[in-house]
């Protein structure tokens, strides 16, 4: 293969890697980004479509994965802030957790909140199916007289246990479970806003 062909192949590979790394973005947005960078590379290379000329142009842009991560870091908070989707907010948190200790703490908080919310809602929903075992139970324990267990109703309850809330677990579990779920998402939204204001460009720009 001649030098010009090699240069074109390198551009194609770079843009293919970029498109692959941007696959989580909406299709039109990802295509637009790839086309803009294709245009940029062709402008930079100009008539010097040799392998060395292309290498220099691609090196100035940085690795395709790194470039995509700046777009994704920017796009995910924007999508999450616009859509307010709890799933998008949690996805953004996962990315943030990989970048900083604060992000890791936020992710752990988010996971704990989601776990408690899911347990409460699950317990409320399963109470009609397992009326004798699902609920908030007080378990007899010599060491700790106030030992409680939130049970989904699978398996048996230890002897001597008492169902603390009875059928009240249904409205209260749903109320508190959904409340905690949306409170966690809301806290996530405000932390994403702060993150976006504090770090508008993501980790790059060195």
């Amino acid at each position, binding site marked *: 293969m001649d030098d010009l062909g090699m240069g074109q192949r390198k551009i194609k590979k770079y843009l293919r890697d970029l498109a692959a790394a941007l696959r989580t973005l909406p299709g039109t947005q990802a295509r637009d980004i790839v086309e803009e960078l294709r245009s940029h590379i062709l402008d930079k290379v100009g008539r010097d479509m040799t392998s060395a000329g292309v290498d220099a142009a691609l090196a100035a842009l940085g690795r395709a994965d790194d470039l995509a991560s700046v777009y994704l870091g920017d796009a995910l908070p924007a999508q999450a802030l616009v859509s307010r989707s709890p799933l998008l907010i949690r996805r953004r948190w996962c990315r943030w957790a990989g970048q900083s200790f604060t992000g890791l703490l936020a992710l752990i908080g988010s996971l704990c909140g989601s776990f408690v919310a899911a347990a409460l809602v699950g317990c409320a929903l399963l109470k009609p199916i397992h009326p004798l075992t699902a609920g908030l139970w007080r378990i007899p324990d010599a060491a700790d007289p106030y030992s409680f267990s939130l049970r989904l109703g699978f398996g048996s309850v230890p002897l001597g246990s008492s169902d603390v809330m009875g059928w009240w677990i249904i409205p209260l579990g749903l109320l508190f479970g959904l409340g905690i779920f949306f409170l966690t998402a809301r806290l996530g939204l405000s932390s994403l806003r702060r993150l976006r204001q504090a770090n508008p460009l*993501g980790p*790059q*720009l060195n």
Partner: protein
Amino acid sequence: MEPVLAKALLDAGDKWEVQVRKGCLELAILAALWSERLYGLGILRRLAEDSALIVPEGTVYPLLSRLKAEGLLASEWVEADAGHPRKYYWLTASGRRRAVQMAQFWSTFSANLAVLLAPLRKEER
């Protein structure tokens, strides 16, 4: 000065400069687009020629994308003589307002800081 300490101070200085450039880039891009429509590489050249602000190319495009998502910029693809289309950007009305606000803040901020820095300038001489 100890070499390790000197290196640490230099590194800290580099990081500080990166942060300052990072903070200014949004204003610089809005200012570059104040009087004309430009495509990505045109903006980079304008920043380098008019303000000696040399930034990694990979940081400008995501920022343009974000400014557009925030409604400060608009864009369109234009067929160019180069043989491939280019994506041109320009300021929206909201982008122009934001640029003016940022420029006002920057002027006040740098004037105030200049007063504080005056004794250091004498030291430089």
